[in-house]
């Protein structure tokens, strides 16, 4: 299973890419493989306040709806509109085109409390 070294991770299978004071968020290769066949992504609203570990988006497969959690406190500044037309991007390119939203982090240092790739690999072992 692909777990890129340059990303941060949560226990709930989100990945986080630091981009200055922003954090780009998606779900991991492991999560998309578990969900399979993503058919709908409910995106957060731009401007919405995100609370760490609070539910912020929903990813639906044929079988079930799964909550996506904000990794850190912040404000949603961008959402991946491409997922509205093509939710399967979450399956085909989970770490790239399948990103879900970008947060402007309240305190960018919060990201250091997330898991690194090695720690996340242990979670999914």
């Amino acid at each position, binding site marked *: 299973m692909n777990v890129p070294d340059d990303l941060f991770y949560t226990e709930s299978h989100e990945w986080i890419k630091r981009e200055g004071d922003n954090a780009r968020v998606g779900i991991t290769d492991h999560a998309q493989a578990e969900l399979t066949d993503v*058919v*709908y992504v*409910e995106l957060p609203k731009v401007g919405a306040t995100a609370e760490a570990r609070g539910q912020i988006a*929903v990813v*639906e497969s*044929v*079988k079930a*709806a799964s909550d996506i959690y904000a990794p850190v406190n912040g404000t949603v500044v961008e959402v991946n509109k491409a997922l*509205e037309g093509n939710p399967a991007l979450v399956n085909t390119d989970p770490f790239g085109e399948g990103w879900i939203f970008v947060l402007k982090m309240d305190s960018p240092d919060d990201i250091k409390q997330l898991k690194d790739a090695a720690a996340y690999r242990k979670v999914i072992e």
Partner: protein
Amino acid sequence: MTTAAPKKTPLYEEHVRLGAKMIPFGDWIMPVQYSGIMDEHQAVRNNVGIFDISHMGQLVATGPGSGGWLNEMLTNNIDKLEVGTGQYTFLLNERGGIIDDLIVYRTGPEEFLLVVNASRVDEDFAWLKQHLAASCELTNRSDSFGGVAIQGPRVVDLFHALLGSQVELPARNHIIERKLDGMNLSIARTGYTGEDGVEVFFSAKDAAKFWNTVLKTGEQFGIRPCGLGARDTLRLEMCYPLNGSDLSPEHNPIEAGLGFFVDLKKPIFIGRDVLIQAKENGTPNRLAAFRMKGKGPPPRPHYGVWLAGDQIGETTSGTLSPSLNQGIGMAYLPTQHARAGTEIEIEIRGQKFPATIEKKPLYKKS
């Protein structure tokens, strides 16, 4: 809730070996998918797929008068069954509520095979035992038998490759006995997908051998092992009801729109009085099928159904239809609002999404 270890079908090891995702399903642990629900669904619509249905119950009724006795227990008319044919039917309680929906086959002049839902085996068996006629015997062979459903347009090709091209599959709703490599197979032309197909029953000890023989021979026809996920999307596109979701003891077959499988001309069967009333006076609710409009999240069971600002019901089934690429579902709705063409809304996480009541089935083969 049960605390016992989940029951495994005789095909459990094969599912694990194939990398299936296994989930609890009632008392059972069953494969929900192998390659993916979409892929498996399309395999059945376009080629052929095989499903483990060994968790389903198999009851055998024998003895003089067993046909007459079953006619008092079940809604459809057993007298219409020649030896080697079967029919879809209901087991009702005294209130006309549905205990189970099942297929009954006449396998001999005084011998019947009842294929019942996995979650209802014990309940059905107890109910039938309690009402058993003195001259009849009822046995539960569920633990020593397995079964698979093989479904899809290439099923005939597959069976010719398996059994020889001179062997004809039974006609729709017929059941035949065939031998294959020492295995005794009961092959019934039926299914739960809307495609041509069969359900095959065999001794539990032959389950893995038969399963693997079919998968190997089916390779050339694009066969896929299919799980409960695809089974649900396929049946819901056809509006085939799922017991425990669309059918329950609180609803009768008339409300469910399945009066075709109830013979009210029979002089006696459990639940008859209530059903005659329901037929004559109409029922306050009907099981309606709906399709979402435009893009939106797929509906799921237990979502609210709204009309003109009022909640008028709750979904019993819902999914994304892989064939239609749209959300579909069913719900019991007040009869006056259950007509095709009625515009409704489905509440999904507090937001309402438009849908239209449609005629059943929701999917028609083009």
